[in-house]
């Protein structure tokens, strides 16, 4: 896996000059890996010989990847419940639709819970997807309690023995403690009916260093189990997700690559790492 081969062919076979190191460090920073981490990697790489620098760096980055399971949770004997969470505008509802499409292709039955009761027309947006994909959407009154929508949906999913329940929630900034508490409540209320198998944090590929604290706070409030890294079809390549994996051990499970229901790809480490340094 020669990540830097495109950029740093001059490194091989010769001594690496300070400006070469600066260039490598810049590439790491430009990928949103963070200045501190970039410096760390350079230190490690400097201890390697010329033609091994590339693999030293690759190895460092790979070591940051979570060792956890990257497949979507599944149960054969009961409903698998997935919560979709994240800050505003990351693509939670669109990702929910993509998961539906993904699961339907595997012949799984899916029920949706429109637990974003706050944002204007959020429920309608999910209902549009429900109509397009042929799945039912459980809703509640506007500005109502999201936990009760989730509860109703969980009750129905259990009753109908639906394979998957996906709960779409409102975007919320991690700095809003009351909203984070609300999310925790949604989780607890659902767990009265069904266990929560997966809490996926949706992260926008363009996100900078703030992504780390986002993940940490969501981890604390609602115990995230995986990431969906969205908008990977843009110029940003989601380097912050690697930093999140390192800091929290949360694995990227899916990549969002467009606005369509089929624009979802399972995570591939090599492709992802290579893409960071284009």
């Amino acid at each position: 896996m020669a990540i830097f081969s495109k950029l740093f062919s001059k490194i091989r076979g010769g001594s690496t000059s300070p400006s070469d190191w600066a260039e490598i460090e810049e590439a790491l920073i430009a990928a949103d890996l963070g200045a501190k981490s970039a410096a760390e990697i350079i230190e490690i790489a400097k201890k390697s010989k010329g033609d091994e620098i590339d693999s030293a760096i690759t190895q460092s980055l790979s070591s940051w990847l979570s060792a956890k399971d990257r497949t979507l949770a599944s149960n054969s004997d009961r409903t698998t419940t997935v919560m979709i969470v994240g800050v505003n505008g990351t693509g939670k509802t669109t990702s929910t639709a993509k998961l539906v499409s993904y699961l339907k292709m595997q012949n799984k039955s899916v029920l949706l819970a429109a637990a974003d009761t706050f944002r204007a027309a959020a429920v309608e947006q999910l209902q549009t997807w429900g109509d397009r994909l042929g799945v039912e959407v459980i809703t509640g009154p506007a500005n109502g309690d999201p936990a009760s929508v989730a509860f109703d949906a969980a009750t129905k999913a259990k009753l109908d023995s639906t394979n998957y329940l996906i709960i779409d929630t409102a975007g919320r900034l991690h700095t809003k403690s009351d909203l984070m508490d609300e999310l925790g409540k949604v989780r607890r209320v659902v767990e009265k009916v069904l266990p929560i198998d997966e809490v996926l944090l949706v992260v926008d590929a363009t996100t900078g260093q703030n992504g780390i604290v986002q993940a940490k706070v969501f981890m604390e409030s609602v115990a995230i189990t995986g990431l969906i890294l969205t908008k990977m079809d843009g110029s940003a390549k989601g380097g912050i997700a690697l930093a999140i994996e390192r800091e929290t051990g949360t694995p990227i499970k899916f990549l969002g690559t467009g606005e369509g229901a089929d624009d979802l790809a399972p995570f591939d480490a090599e492709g992802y790492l290579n893409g960071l340094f284009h």
Partner: protein
Amino acid sequence: MFESLSAKFQGAFASLRSKGRLKSDDIDEIALEIRAALLDSDVALSVVDSFIGELKSRTASVLDDLNKSTNPANAVFEIVNSLLTEILGGSARRIRLAKKPPTVILLTGLQGAGKTSLAGKLAKYLKDQGNTPLLVASDLQRPNAVTQLQVVGESIGVPVFAPEPGNGVGDPVKVAKNGLSFAQDKLHNIVIVDTAGRLGVDAELMAQAKKIRDAINPDEVLYVVDAMVGQDAVRTAQAFQEGVGFDAVVLTKLDGDARGGAALSITQVTGKPIMFAATGEKVSDFDLFHPDRMASRILGLGDIQTLAEQAKGAFDSDTAAKLETKFASGEDFTLDDFLSQLEAMKKMGSMTKLLGMLPGANSGAMKKQLEQFDEGELVKTQSIVQSMTPLERHDPKVLNGSRRSRIAKGSGRQVSDVNSLVERFTQAQKVMKQMRTGKGGIAMPPGLPNMPNLPKSPSAQLVNKKKSRSGNPAKRALES
């Protein structure tokens, strides 16, 4: 949330000072601290490097003054801050209204930046100023983007031109064009056109955006960008600049704790001003952009000035009276006072409705600023102070290692948290002393890091001359 960059400076300068006279090389060490802080704030690498270059030359030219100064760290800090503020606010201007109405405003940006929410906020803002805006639903791509705009429009009493249902149906160029005609027909003096989010790398959609633009010839094209965006900020902004062109920028989601370095990157690289700041999900969470506040945010100091505004009116008359008495008697400001001020601030967070009833407070702005306040930080500080004995609260000088360790354990925090609190409190005490003696004009709620660059509050000079109306020094300083 409030890292002490100035403390890092103090540290760096302390070690430099011991070497004797400062040379321009010594500034390089400081520059490294600043570089790290800016990168942590997501300022684009290229922009950081050019900023540091400019900073070094400015600092080098005042090296003599720095060597004479009693607090060179603060002086350099001020140079950094004013340079930042200059770049952020240099091209600042108000929204341009067309000589011949309607004024056409086109919103563009990546998916999820907050364009549709912003459309509502901008419409309300302009409506409150006596205009007759029309919202045009030209995002025909994202499911129910049209519905969303209609719901928002209804909530603020602004009509929405939405001939197409969207969801993939309809031609956005046509809708925009017809929206303009409709506005002219119905004599709306402002047209705000919402468009679909699109990637800078999507040539087809960028071409479409250009077409929309050409069809309506906007007076202002606003590029809407999320404050948490990282190193990609420049690349994407340039793509939009080249693809559709924009006149000004709107920064959204500033109610989070993202430092917002993208603001610096985008203004520096495109030369376009940041016109507005969106600070929440409510339609009223909208403000003019304040470059000085953004500067302190990027430097990791939070939005001190906004918090200072918050402090005005945050204290109930009881607490205020108690502090007044304390001040009059010359008693020292203690950790207990500090705690009660924090508690007052915490109360602010959950009493947004009552705030509207506080006299003299710009409650609209305050409500929004409150949500910016990180309640977690507050709770943390409270728990530490509550684990202290009355003696420790009264006289923090007794806080040796074993006491700090006990306090950390008792409150479930780290010793470093205790240290950081004591440092902040000590600074707060200094501020209080300064306020009492009329020296210094740094008007901010104690408990927050000392910021040397805030404009001197004129009323600080009046403290000795006039009888103060409030026991809260921050409030007093703001009363004028």
